[in-house]
């Protein structure tokens, strides 16, 4: 499982701009919001989208990510729902750790934009 988490994490890190938003709170919101929806899409095939524009944005990024990783990592399609969720939760944890908790970027914690 570790290798697969690493594979997905590395791909997301080199591809997705949403994880690099400038401040800690943006990064947390994007990683949480987008990966939550991606997990739902991967496991249920659909996800809840509220009326707000921001929620719609999370859905847009999640949908693009899911289509992309399903085609790049065919092994993902062979996992059951619980396995998919477990792997994606680990990916989320790793992203949060690298992009927020252990980030060496001193501007992440500035108080404004």
């Amino acid at each position, binding site marked *: 499982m570790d290798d697969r988490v690493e594979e997905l994490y590395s791909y997301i*890190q*080199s*591809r997705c*701009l*949403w994880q*690099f*938003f*400038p*401040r800690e709170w*943006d990064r947390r919101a994007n990683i949480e919001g987008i990966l939550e929806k991606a997990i739902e899409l991967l496991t249920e095939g659909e996800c809840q989208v509220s009326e*707000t*524009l*921001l929620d*719609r*944005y999370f*859905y*847009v*990024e999640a*949908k*693009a990510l899911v289509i*992309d990783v399903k085609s790049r990592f065919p092994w993902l399609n062979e996992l059951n729902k619980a396995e998919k969720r477990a792997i994606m939760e680990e990916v989320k944890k790793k992203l949060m750790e*690298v*992009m927020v908790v*252990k*980030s*060496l*970027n*001193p*501007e*992440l914690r500035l108080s404004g*934009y």
Partner: protein
Amino acid sequence: MPFVLFRCDEVIPEREKHCYVKSPGEDIVTYLPAANIATIPGTLTERGCAYCGAKLVIGGAIKDCIQMIHGPVGCAYNTWHTKRYLSDNNDFQLKHVCSTDMKESHIVFGGMDRLKKSIKEAFAAYPEIKRMIVYITCATALIGDDIDAIAREVEEELGDVDIFCVKCPGFAGVSQSKGHHEFNMEWMRDKVGECEPEIWSPYTVNIIGEYNIQGDGFIMENYMKRMGIQVIGHFTGNGSYDLLRGMHRAKLNVVICARSAGYIANELKRRYGIPRLDIDPWGFDYIAEGLRKIGTFFGIEDRAEKLIAEETAKWRPKLDWYKERLAGKKICIWTGGPRLWHWVKAFEDELGMRVVAMSCKFGHPDDFEKAISRGREGTIYIDDGNELEFFEVIEKVKPDIIYTGPRVGDLVKKLHIPYLDGHGEHNGPYMGFEGFVHMARDMYNAIYSKLWQLAKEDIRRKDNGR
């Protein structure tokens, strides 16, 4: 490998923390070059001043307002006519710039009267233009000229004009990046929300951080039009002063240059709840992804797919021809900041090239987070590179081509290495499907040009130096 100290930097060892080579197993929590900090005295920086970032990059691209530089004429001259941002207003913004032409006596006795006279003269000289941006510069900031007070006086006297004041003198920050920041924040504070744009589509966006270099923005606007999407504020390429005052009415912010204009997108999100969607518009794969996301946001995926199919059919064969000839070539990207991470994967994945060194002038730590995450192991990453470092990098990586600005470009040309203008986009536009083919064509023409052989010949010698 940790940070590296170049031979030329032995006398300024502080440079070490700005230069990094990525080794196996390292990532952005192992090493991250220092960035967006003051240039070390002794290093020959390629950076520009903070005022330059506000005027040359952001404000200067707006097509329908007068640019008034309150300072010595050099500040205006240095930021005039050196950018290739086009507009559909007969390129007014490229051709014209005004200066208060401050001299020593004005510095001694104050420049506010002179500013007022200049503003009125400029409005009289361009009677069809009713909008103006006034920039303060080092000298006028130091003597404390109150440009806002003068602007409000003139607005009241003339009645039908609107003036935006940018208070970001050259010394306000460590590089042009500070000017981008100030312009964004001041525009948001003073101007956004002042105008109500006419809405003709249920699908509305702002295009943010796109400066219509060589017509890049025309390509993006064309894509939006074909999908039935209305662009309200184009911040700021081919941008209209009044439409940019109506940016709060868009449903989505499509961000391209996150470095120079991410700030306004963040503020629009914070204040108006408009989401920020960052896209990479260079490379087929990336632009297709960006268009798909915009299509999904508005529930018009079919339109995005149609556009992508049409463009791919038209341009893919051409790109493939260049790809065959560019695969394996080594390239350096030494530009401002974001082009490092925007371009690296597109060059590597879509053209088969190898990006061996990346350097930025005014990047922040998040630009390096992105560049290092996307870049390969063994690649050299430099913040605020100086020209002696560039010589050492060239010696080490022996690139086939370098994307950089004219300053460094002229140096590398003398070493007989092909250079392309990474800011002005040579024979661009470079964005979108069509643009990426132009980019590949420029690289092909540069690398395979016979000129490089001819340039090596010394015509003073009988055997031409062979």
